[in-house]
């Protein structure tokens, strides 16, 4: 059943041309969606709109049938959205554990021991003890990406929005990240929406959404 829908969605920056025009789509739980398109086609913009970080110029985004405009979008992001940014956007001076604890505090996700929970999560994503205590800026791109994914998964959101999560990674790291995302969708019944250039990532998606100036859909 669709729990995130976009209806006649259009977006443009300032007075420029429309980046997204009359887009319609429904997203379901437990499925992976790949947004494919050239740079500048509007993939990141679409993810930002789905996260409630920006407002469409026309059309609606509905979460569980309620328009995003009408709900508290901070709360929506904190509770339902896990965001993996292209540039990771981690808190640079914090270590991996503190980055995750901070996200859990913002989302008010309750567990008995937040630190232990963060450690377990990072361990499951292959960040060893030594690296967990380093400032994230001292970690490699692949490791930072894993921390960003751990942060996005930490509060068990319904939806993961991942902006080119494998963009700056080598093949081995790419495969690892893809595996984590697939597992998350199938085992935890999450909706994963990934913007990507990678055919490998697109290959594991249940649906591919080709983003051009006027979008069309391949099933």
């Amino acid at each position, binding site marked *: 059943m669709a729990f995130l829908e976009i209806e006649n969605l259009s977006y443009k920056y300032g007075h420029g041309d429309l980046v997204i025009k009359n887009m319609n789509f429904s997203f379901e739980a437990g499925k992976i969606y790949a947004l494919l398109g050239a740079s500048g086609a509007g993939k990141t913009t679409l993810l930002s709109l789905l*996260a409630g970080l920006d407002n469409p110029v026309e059309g609606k985004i509905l979460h569980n049938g309620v328009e995003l405009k009408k709900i508290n979008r901070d709360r929506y*992001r904190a509770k339902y*959205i896990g965001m993996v940014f292209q540039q990771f*956007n981690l*808190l640079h001076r*914090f270590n991996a554990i503190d980055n995750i604890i*901070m996200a859990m505090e*913002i989302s008010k996700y309750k567990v008995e021991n937040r630190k232990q929970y963060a450690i377990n999560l990072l361990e499951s994503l292959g960040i060893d003890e030594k690296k967990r205590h380093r400032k994230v800026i001292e970690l490699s791109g692949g490791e930072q990406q894993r921390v960003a994914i751990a942060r996005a998964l930490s509060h068990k959101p319904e939806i993961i929005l991942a902006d080119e999560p494998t963009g700056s990674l080598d093949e081995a790291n790419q495969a690892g990240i893809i595996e984590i995302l697939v597992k998350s969708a199938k085992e935890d019944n999450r909706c994963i929406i990934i913007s990507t250039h990678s055919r490998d990532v697109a290959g594991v998606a249940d649906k591919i959404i080709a983003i051009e100036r006027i979008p069309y859909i391949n099933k």
Partner: protein
Amino acid sequence: MKSIFTGISKNSMKNIIYIILLIIAFMPVSLLMNTYFIGQGIVSGFDVLRESYGDNWNLLSQHSWLFNIRVIILSNMTSLVAMVIMQIILSITILPFLQYLFSLSRGYEIGVMRALGLGKGKAWLRLLAENIILTSTALALSLGLTIIFYKSFAFSLLGIDNETKQILDARLDTENMYGLNSEALFYAFSTAIAVTLVSSALCNVLISNSAPLKLIQKHK
């Protein structure tokens, strides 16, 4: 609350610089205000001395500092008002600028936290809480440094050398005259605290109301 302290400790170097800048902004006026009150004490003490010296007045007047003090300090309310105006001008020009820099330096972190779902109000409160903790630290240090240095600062500005001090010490009750003045501290720090809090609150509105992605991109 714990996360606020985590945030402060993770930005320790930036915060140390911020605290030093605040101390530099807080201290001059508190030192000057104390100098004003010490000067007033000395001048009134000097009047007592002049009466008792009588014909020997010239002996004391060789110490030209007394005349300087008269000119600078003893215009009574006018100079006090001038001090307070200087305090307000210094506070209004320097402190909001420091607050603005502080808020900007937190832009990226606040942007990331807002993108993760931190509300505008909570972002504002977080910045204010961080700032109150840092400002309190700077104030406590400024007060400590004022207590340590106010006397030597006042003596050097008023031109009181050891010889003069000995004359005053021998003839007058200088313990109270040289004492730290609570009124001076009140004038100096209350204005600074008020300006800091108001400007911090306003600058934080700018940051916490900005779109999260803009904050992140701006501070990358």
